[in-house]
């Protein structure tokens, strides 16, 4: 299991979702990806994308106009 970070600051949805989708393709099941962005839409779009694609959201939080989703790559 490895930890990764993806910067999607300034990008507006669905681009953070697309970047997340592309990044996850290069990861292994069990890897953890932290996605950081400035579009509040990621707080619902990335969890929705995770639900339909079999990944697990481990954490989500926001502070100072930044939004963070931590996900675990599914099988």
């Amino acid at each position, binding site marked *: 299991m490895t930890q990764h970070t993806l910067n999607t*600051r*300034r990008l*507006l*949805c*669905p*681009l953070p*979702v*697309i970047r997340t*989708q592309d990044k996850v393709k290069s990861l292994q099941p069990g890897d953890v990806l932290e996605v950081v962005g*400035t*579009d*509040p*839409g990621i*707080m*619902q*779009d990335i969890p*929705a*994308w995770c*639900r*339909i*694609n079999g990944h697990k959201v481990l954490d989500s939080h926001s502070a100072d*106009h930044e939004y963070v989703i931590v996900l675990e790559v599914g099988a």
Partner: protein
Amino acid sequence: MTQQRKAVALISGGLDSMLAAKTVMEQGIHVEGINFFTGFCVEGHTHAIRDKDRAKPKRNNALWVAEQLGIKLHIVDVIEEYKKVLINPKHGYGAHLNPCLDCKIFMVNRAKQWLAENQFDFIITGEVIGQRPMSQRKNTMPIIAKQSGADDLLLRPLCAKNLPETLPEREGWIDRDKLHDITGRSRKPQMAMAAQFGIDDYSQPAGGCCFLVDKNYTAKLVDLWQAQGSKDYELDDVMLLKVGRHIRPAAHFKLIVAREEGEGRFLQGYKKEYTSLLATSHNGPLVLLDGEASAEDLFLAAQITARFGQGREAEHVDVAITDKDGLERVVTVTPIPKAQFPKEWYI
């Protein structure tokens, strides 16, 4: 044992593509969705930017539809490829800069590529004959199938009975009798079908889901093309056209004026690419300057910046002008009087 057939459905996030996918899923076909991001898709960008809307961010309808259907969704970035569709559409534009027919041909063609790469069997769209004046007409249906290269791999479940048989029907993967014969602009048949499927929440965006059908947005895009002397754009251009007031006092430069704090924060992210202006003696919006401006132009830009702040009635307003390298200087100006600010400057 029969082979599990697989279809990829173009999912826009609206009701028709949802019903088309559902109709085919009901016949035991494995369906996955595909959604193309052109840069012009209406996906709540202004909600993401403006403070007053941030508390109620819009959902991504394509993701939402996929989740309701219980299918995977593949979102594909086609921003670069889409330029040639928008800049030079073979079939022309609709009422504004919407190249709907070329757009549909492009998307079906991309879906066909995806089909081959992922060993799927056929393509589904939610098209309905007569639903849209440019791209969904009886005579455009075969054009889309032929020019996309999809030919009889393209199934339109909502109006299939009004069209020639497709491969999945001929091969018996799909029972044609269970497909539909909807025509025209009425939404009643789709609403009835939605009720049958127990679908009671769906998006029906007026005028579609594309900024290229928006009069105000496309006026700004035309202005951009005129100003740069060519029909080209980058993603940042497309995004910035959605933000702020756009004011062009001269052919060689324009100003983008934040309308509220959220927009100002968004424009802050572009300070390394554009000259920016901000009143320092009074509260006021961040302004970006796009183009090449002389000292005289910068002075006028500062006067306009002052006009949009709380110092609009003041005799003097200090305005900081910061270039792309971060070098700042402050000028003192009188806000431009209303009488000297023609309405034609607004794009």
